[in-house]
């Protein structure tokens, strides 16, 4: 305890008026020391615009958003870039965007097949996008129980029924999607 007191005394007793003064003798140029505005502080950094800062300090110490703080977090720039590249690449989808048309709809949509992991998810996505009901897929009969049938154009230019081939094969060969009316899909004349 005594040691601690001595250290503090030493610190407090530093006589800045004699040897180590700031500025010219006779002037009183002690900089403000920002005290407990920052201590015991439960505020997040975004709230830290301490009003006790001098004007000069304000612009530096008004906390920027995380992205703007130079050199924080302390990660080397080549390390930041690599992950950014990875993110961009996955965002670009490297060619997984396909046009989707629906019979009777006035304009086409675009859809990123990489956003889906399975036919189920794709169907859900299509149904949400076009506000239609696509129905269930049966291996023998195709789509039952709805007015709409999803088809796609494959690499060879043929129009295929969505669901026949494994998912991985589908997304690597699908060039565009078309949601047909089910009566047309079956080649029936009356709808």
């Amino acid at each position, binding site marked *: 305890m005594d040691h*601690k007191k001595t*250290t*503090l005394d*030493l*610190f407090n007793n*530093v006589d*800045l008026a004699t*040897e*180590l*003064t*700031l*500025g010219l003798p006779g002037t009183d*140029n*002690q*900089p*403000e*020391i*920002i*005290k*407990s505005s*920052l*201590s*015991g*502080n*439960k505020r*997040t*950094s975004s709230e*830290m615009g301490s009003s006790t800062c001098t004007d*000069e*300090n304000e612009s*530096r*110490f008004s*906390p920027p958003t*995380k*992205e703007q*703080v*130079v*050199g*924080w*977090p*302390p*990660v*080397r*720039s*080549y*390390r*930041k870039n*690599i*992950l950014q590249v*990875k*993110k961009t690449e996955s965002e670009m989808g490297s060619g997984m965007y396909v046009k989707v048309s629906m019979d009777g709809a006035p304009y086409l949509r675009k859809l990123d097949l990489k956003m889906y992991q399975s036919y189920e998810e794709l169907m859900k996505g299509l149904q949400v996008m076009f506000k239609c009901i696509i129905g269930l897929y049966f291996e023998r009969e195709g789509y039952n129980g709805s007015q709409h049938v999803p088809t796609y154009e494959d690499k060879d230019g043929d129009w295929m029924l969505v669901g026949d081939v494994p998912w991985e094969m589908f997304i690597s060969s699908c060039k565009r999607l078309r949601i047909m009316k089910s009566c047309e899909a079956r080649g029936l004349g009356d709808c």
Partner: protein
Amino acid sequence: MTYSFPEEVLEHVFSFLTSQNDRNAASLVCRTWYEMERWCRKRIFVGNCYAVNPRVLIRRFPEVKAVELKGKPHFADFNLVPEGWGGFVYPWIVEFARVYPWLEEIRLKRMVVTDECLEIVSKAFRNFKVLILSSCEGFSTDGLAAVAANCRNLRVLDLRECEVEELSGHWLSHFPDSFTSLESLNIACLSLEVSFSALERLVSRSPNLKTLRLNRTVPLEKISKLLQRAPQLADFGTGAYSAEIRPDVYSSLQEAFSGCKKLKSLSGFWDVVPAYLPAVFSVCSQLTYLNLSYATTQSPDLIKVISQCHNLQRLVVLDYIEDMGLDTVAVTCKDLRELVVFPSDPFVADANVLLTEEGLVSVSQGCSKLQSVLYFCRQMSNSALISISKNRPNLTCFRLCILEPRAPDYLTFEPLDVGFGSIVENCKELTRLSMSGLLTDRVFEYIGKHAKKLDMLSVAFAGDSDLGLHHVLSGCESLRKLEIRDCPFGDKALLANASKLLTMRSLWMSSCFVSFGACKLLGQKMPGLNVEVIDERENLNLLPENAPVEKVYIYRTVSGQRLDMPDFVRIMGKDKNGVYNLSLCDKGL
């Protein structure tokens, strides 16, 4: 009674002193020992290139074979040191070329190295063997071509995390066919493709090759060829670890890896395709070092690899490993000494992965030899820090980065003072500490009181007042490097502890409250220090005395003023000649 050993005996005894500190101590014993020692010192380490100038060095040590120099301060890694600040190695290289024709090894860290420097190195030193450039910049592949073409006896070319101006990948082809001495090649930081056939031929004619770290452009399919040519490799870094999934590629890769019986270090793994990871399983149990920090793949895939690495001593990984993966580390890697976890998405506030303080606590419990930690995470608690400190009192290096500045204990919302206090109190051998989160002056009080072996301290967004800085400067007896950013520390503590700065290598303070006037005063009063004000604002001379400077970098030096400063760097309080310091130089110190 006086006695003295014959010179040959002294020289022989000194040859057993390898640490520079020991040699420095020996040279202080008496004039004879000083003279004897300086003639036979072969290896030189200069921790701050501006602490001493080349002339002083070569005057004292005439027979040097290996030099290691460090330039910019550590915070330069995070873009806090403006471009052009300094750390130019050219003047050193010129002196070495003049005086040390038998120089064999050059190791540089955070220095500016030009192509001209590399050309001089390649031609001036007949027996040049080792070039290690760590976080350096300023050179291009032309400089590398000169090294490749001219260094007949080169053993090590190691470019660690350098910024290279890449004009072409052709430089590698400049190694002549007669060149067979290569032991270590690290080109991982380069982004341009090098000629694979040149690389393959180089590897084939290098029987002593132990380390090969490729860059991202070397495709996975070609790795097996290289490994087959160099089954003696101890340290291998892959290129991009991705390819179409093909059984033939997989099996030759797997076979090639299993042929590497001496492989202990593995790294690379950019763009990893998880299906190819099992190809390394055969070497996992041999590994002592594994760097998966570019492997952007999920925890289960990482766990499959790590769970086989029973002898791992150093692990570097992304936070994709998650707490679950770290539990595996804790159970499997009983010999672990060092753990590094980098953030995969550092700028996103919300956690993208399930990595918390729990993972670190788990490893601290399970890995009894753990000494060194660098951990990025989004939440921390005092109780976790206390647990870690009690589990691992043998920690020597503890660097924790909580991504959000000033983040409190997420459970109690209190500052993390007590947690870090526990670290310094229990880990008595701690030599390096980096802190983050919400911290008051309290934590500095603990550090000043307990961290007696602390050599390096990094602080950001912490403290309340000058008292914090004072605790550290007055209490940490072993402190040599202190770097501070965005803390409310000003003049008082700095000036009160001015003499402490002479016992340290350097002090960095940026975005703090150190005034222009205080810097001037310190520079005037302390001729043994360079007080560099680094400030990019215009009209710095018009700055009022009490205005805070952007950055100040203070280091002890016998070299005086440096002559290569850009206009945004001012050395305070010295006249242009630095007369006082030059006279010290003439005394041969």
